[in-house]
């Protein structure tokens, strides 16, 4: 029985694809996250806003997906914006230096305005 503690809901807002990420990203759920991100990139979405308000936990398996996706998008002159990461997720991004690599915004409004 597969218990997936991650939900990913995508919608389009103007030029942006907004993904509501809820739950936890770890070894078990990271492949689902990777598949979803690869799918968006393959569809030609170049501006992706990840709403992390409901993301309670992320470890390096999630970071790997984020970095891989960012690399692919930047090759196509696209970008990922991380919206409203919660404290535990922000901590992991900060400790790994990735707060300097990713665009992080506190609200979705700020993210898609750019």
């Amino acid at each position: 029985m597969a218990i997936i503690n991650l939900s990913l809901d995508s919608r389009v807002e103007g030029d942006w694809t907004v993904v509501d990420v809820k739950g936890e990203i770890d070894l078990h759920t990271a492949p689902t996250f990777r598949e979803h991100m690869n799918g968006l990139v393959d569809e030609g979405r170049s501006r992706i806003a990840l709403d992390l308000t409901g993301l309670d936990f992320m470890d390096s398996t999630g970071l790997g997906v984020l970095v891989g996706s960012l690399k692919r998008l930047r090759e196509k002159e696209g970008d990922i914006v991380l919206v409203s990461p919660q404290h535990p997720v922000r901590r992991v991004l900060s400790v790994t230096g990735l707060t300097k690599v990713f665009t992080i915004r506190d609200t979705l409004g700020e993210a898609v305005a750019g």
Partner: protein
Amino acid sequence: MSERADNGMDTFLLEIGPDARYVATARMFAASIARHYACEEERVQDLKVAVSEACTNSIKAHQALGAEDPIRITASPEGNAVRYDIIDAGGGFSKDGQAVDFAAVPDDPSELLESGIGLSLIEALFPDAWVGPHPEGGTAVRFSIDIPGSVPR
């Protein structure tokens, strides 16, 4: 689930099969013990990451070797801290103590990033973390979370 160790303190043990779906269980177990001892919540969040990283490495090691042995996570209160050990039966270290590269090279380069960053993330969050060969084979990862207000040794 709980046994008395030689020094009279409780040691708590969780064994999980080498399956990714149990990493969340290991986090819950570790966090519950730490909260029971009133550890600071910010450090409990760091603990969850460290346990998740260690278990991830262990599960990958077991899967690379085709090992079905469980991975053991122990939590031992030791006066002013709770000590966690994550012990696997994977390739880990060879007999002469050299690290064995047990992770197969993945097709997706972002997975290589994950493997490399896991241990460094543990050490960034818990600078006193220790990784080494376990006497019974495999690798042990150890780190401790402080119990606030306790008397330092």
